């Protein structure tokens, strides 16, 4: 082919670019440009790697609770079983309040029950109040569950789950520890263990006394 400095049909194999045809200066800039491009690729990949490595260190199912450190949403709820007192959060100011959301259909609630009961026994006379709120549970089932499991701390109803939604509950069991000033100091999603619960209660008690 006239004027054609390389074979035009690639039938057999690779085509080596005739580098001899390049002038020295042009190929130097080309080489530099090429390394700039490669450097750019490496840099972009490095940034992505850092981002994804960070992502690997995070638990994707854990949503960080936003209410910790903020004032606890107030509530004034009627008792679960008739004949009990209405529980108003504002009237509990000055004490440490542990709010526990549970349900009769919740398996993990049964798992955490011993921890709650033990902590209740230990702290009930030391300025700590437990409040149990059933979530999405028919009243009869909640009452039955409470009787079965011997829930001895104050239990209330949450019609329309207004309180649960105000507390940002995803599903039971969830436990909130509210300090004496009315701020939420800790939120546990999932069953809470005795050491964690007592640790948070102790801290909340200590904080108020400063």
């Amino acid at each position, binding site marked *: *082919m006239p004027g*054609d400095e*390389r074979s035009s049909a690639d039938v057999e194999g690779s085509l080596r670019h005739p580098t001899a045809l390049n002038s020295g200066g042009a190929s130097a800039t080309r080489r530099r440009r090429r390394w700039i491009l490669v450097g750019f690729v490496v840099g972009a990949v490095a940034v992505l790697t850092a981002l994804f490595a960070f992502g690997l260190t995070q638990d994707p199912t854990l*949503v960080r609770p*936003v209410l910790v450190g903020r004032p606890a949403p107030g509530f004034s709820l009627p008792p679960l079983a008739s004949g009990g007192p209405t529980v108003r959060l504002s009237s509990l100011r000055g004490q440490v309040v542990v709010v526990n959301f549970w349900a009769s259909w919740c398996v993990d609630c049964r798992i955490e029950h011993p921890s709650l009961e033990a902590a209740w026994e230990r702290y009930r006379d030391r300025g700590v109040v437990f409040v149990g709120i059933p979530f999405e549970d028919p009243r009869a089932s909640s009452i039955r569950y409470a009787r079965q499991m011997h829930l001895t701390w104050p239990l209330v109803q949450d019609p329309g789950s207004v309180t649960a*939604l105000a507390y*940002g509950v995803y*599903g039971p069991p969830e436990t909130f520890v509210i300090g004496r000033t009315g701020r939420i100091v800790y939120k546990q999603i999932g069953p809470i263990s005795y050491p964690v619960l007592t640790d948070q209660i102790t801290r909340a008690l200590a904080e108020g006394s400063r």
Partner: protein
Amino acid sequence: MRRRATVVIAGAVLAAAGALAVVAVRGAEPPRTLQDRVRAVASTLRCPVCQDLSVADSPSSVARQMRAMIASELRAGRSPDEVRAGFVRAYGPWILLAPPRHGIDLVAWVAPILVVLAALLLAAVAVRRWTFGAPRPGGPGATVGGANEDPSAPRTTADEVALEPEDRRLLEHALASMDEDPD
């Protein structure tokens, strides 16, 4: 024939533009019934226990309670933004299905615009750089050295007799296919 086609197209474009303008001016229908208003708000909130479903779509019990709460809040006269803000207070900005449009989250909304601008820029550059003013043999000379980068380089005799790029490709293709499967 030619005239008719032009007239039809012009008419079509005008009619379409007119129709779109009418629809645009008419505006989106504001939700009327309470259920519709609840749905409008709920479809901007994320169901906390589902994977990326909105509160409007989710069949879970939490979502149902949230819809009931949205309904009662709307009935009490709160605005959709206030209802949303209430949920954000409890669950954090994560509960919104789309990131809020301020702060660092604004980047998410600006990014698509930037991408589109970049694409338009690329298109303009590509069409300008790669389009013939008049047909001109690209030829094999164009790929050697810097000739491709210098459109004002003087054309050699060799260029003038070189094949049109399309024909060269066809020839190449034909020659290659003699030796391999014409896939």
